[in-house]
């Protein structure tokens, strides 16, 4: 039966994560963007909250929480509302954990997840996006060809978060029977990791281009069959993060508009500004609901192609509009870096592009 409310546990998770994001991520966002680094202590704190690794089965030494894409969207949104780069960094383990928990067999789970049950933050990584444009995210140029007991992977990837730091990278490639998700161990020959990327936004997140040249991985490291739904999980996570960034911008703009005077009133009292804020609020809520519906569809095992596509593109459009208006409400002050809205605008521009930034 239709119900738009989080259950008690989800509510608790949200409150916890939101407080963490507000108190720890938000204040660190600007400096992290400037320096290009996520403070290790923050990643460790997030790790200790168990946000990324809660679903690791007990048999593998984890908490064995039921995987839930909806709960994942709640966490992703709340963290991204603090800071997108840091959120992506601290959630990166899920890029490995989620696929392995969902599609991995016992052997794969034992081998891979054991790296993620320690007390230290351990990053994860997914190689999905490719340096091309205009093509479907499901039409991968990177190939995985079975050769004896190995898959031989060839292709280029970009925006691979934490590629250089993760013990594992889940590489998505076109195989002859659908999209393969292959767990590639750090240091595997044929896996070349380039220098750090510089991008419009996401500056605190260490992303890399990687080249796979006849990179051989045991066929046993392919997770399940077709991995398209894993890609869709990434897209849902991104839509939730877009909502978080949009919400941050909306609320900051509201607060600013209520304190900034012009022409005799607070600017929030002017219809042009007030209606802009109202439209932003509606789009943030609409994007959230569409993302949650897509997550629910994934959780209930239905065909989520339409819901996920809609959620992703809607959220990408919404965050673009909302963060752009966030800057506009602040005017010249929105353009200078003393206020965070320009950072959110730069981060927000990427949601039409990101693939494999996070998972739920």
């Amino acid at each position, binding site marked *: *039966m*239709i*119900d*738009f*409310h*989080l*259950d008690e546990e*989800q509510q608790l998770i949200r409150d916890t994560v939101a407080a963490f994001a507000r108190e720890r991520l938000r204040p660190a966002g600007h400096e992290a963007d400037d320096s290009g680094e996520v403070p290790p202590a923050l990643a460790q704190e997030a790790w200790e909250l168990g946000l990324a690794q809660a679903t690791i089965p007990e048999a593998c030494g984890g908490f064995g929480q039921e995987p839930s894409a*909806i709960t994942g969207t709640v966490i992703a949104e709340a963290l991204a509302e603090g800071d997108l780069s840091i959120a992506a960094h601290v959630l990166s383990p899920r890029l490995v954990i989620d696929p392995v928990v969902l599609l991995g067999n016992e052997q794969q789970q034992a081998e891979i997840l054991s790296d993620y049950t320690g007390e230290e933050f351990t990053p994860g990584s997914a190689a999905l996006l490719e340096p091309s444009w*205009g*093509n*479907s*995210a*499901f*039409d991968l140029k990177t190939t995985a060809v079975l050769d004896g007991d190995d898959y031989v992977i060839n292709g280029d990837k970009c925006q691979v978060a934490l590629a250089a730091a993760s013990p594992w990278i889940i590489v998505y490639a076109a195989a002859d029977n659908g999209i393969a998700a292959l767990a590639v161990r750090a240091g595997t020959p044929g896996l070349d990791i380039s220098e750090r990327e510089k991008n419009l936004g996401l500056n605190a997140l260490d992303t890399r281009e990687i080249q796979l040249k006849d990179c051989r991985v045991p066929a046993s490291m392919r997770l399940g069959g077709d991995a398209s739904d894993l890609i869709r999980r990434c897209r849902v996570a991104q839509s939730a993060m877009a909502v978080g960034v949009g919400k941050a911008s*909306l609320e900051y703009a*509201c607060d600013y*508009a*209520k304190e900034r005077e012009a022409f005799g009133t607070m600017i*929030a*009292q002017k*219809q042009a500004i*007030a*209606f802009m*804020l*109202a*439209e932003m*609020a*509606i789009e943030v*809520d*609409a*994007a959230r*609901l*569409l993302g*949650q*519906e897509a997550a*629910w*569809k994934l959780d*209930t095992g239905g065909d989520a*192609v*339409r819901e996920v*596509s*809609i959620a992703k*593109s*809607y959220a990408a459009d919404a965050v673009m509009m909302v963060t752009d208006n966030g800057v506009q409400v602040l005017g010249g002050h929105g353009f200078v870096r003393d206020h965070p809205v320009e950072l959110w605008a730069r981060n927000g521009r990427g949601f039409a592009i990101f693939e494999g930034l996070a998972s739920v």
Partner: protein
Amino acid sequence: MDFSLSEAALQRRELIHAVAENMMRPISREFDDNEHSDAWDFFNTMWEFTSASPSDAQMTGDPGSKKKGPSERTLIAAIQIEELSWGDAGLYLSIPNPGLGGAAVNAAGTPEQKKRFLGDFHSGKPRWAAMAITEPHFGSDSKQVATTAVRDGDEWVLNGTKIFCTSGKRALEDSEGFVVVWATLDASKGRPAIKSFIVPAGTPGVTVDKLEHKMGIRASDTAVITLEDARIPADNLLGSADISDKGHEGFKGVMATFDATRPIVAASALGIAQAAVDFVTDALVEAGIEIRYEAGTREMTVLEKDVIDMQSQLQAARLLTWRACNMIDRGERNSREASMCKSKAGLAVTLITQKAVELLGPLGYSRKNLLEKWMRDAKINDIFEGTQQINLMIVARSILGYSSKELN
């Protein structure tokens, strides 16, 4: 969190969809072409249908009734109204029922008044009740009510002109219905002096002067009503005659019914939008075109993208609407969410039907098909029960924590 409809909701949807498809669609063009004619066969059938099963009365958009029900009562009402509007939004608005007038009696009436005006409403011949707020000189700014009510002995004497009274003629001339009329006891006192009065059919001095010719929802009558020394019994006043600030609370109560009616209007918008999307989808199937949701920009056609956008906007509006309904069903305040869904749905249905007409070219523009009609029907959803602008204002006040004095 759950996005699936319950069995009960699914069954209602299926039932009402069949009503819409078999009883409304076949006569849709006829009652659009012949504005101001009455679909009596349809009215009678619907009347029997709702009279036989009181719970079916919900389908007619009577969210103000306080009947005990499942916690998805409002949601199911919205789903039913979406289906009826999928059938024909003008005919849906014409279904004989207590409507907004009944909702007002339910919300603000005494037990005696409820019994008198709603007690046996569904017996006998089809009846309508209506709400008359707007006047020629104002629309959204309802504190400008100039229709007067003066106490004379055991009666109230009403004078004024009301416009945009949906089902006004059917309530007053075609049935033994009533109209709830907003009038002021003292125009100098503003909102607190504005009260609602139940004016029954047959009251001398009440005339339907004109039925509007409209762009769309032509099956629905939109009446201009004049009240010339119209006398009604003293106890036809809803609420108290007190014009102190305390009396003002009554006005606020009436305004609060918008929180319940806005999601219902939004639901009607969804139905029209879904009709347009279905029409386009059928055309795609006929042309052998499949939507590739996950294609890139180099492959996806403008047609595919437009259809996906239509579906996105529709679903976004639907989820916002269902959320607002869900909140009512849980007893939560939903002013912000009600205005959010009304704003979004009113705009979405306008843009979706426009785009559908555009995409289907001459098929969309021709009156051979119903698509052009849905585009005409759509626009009213962006206007009545609070225009787009009024609803954005309410959302803005809510997120900013402003009063109507601080933001207007």
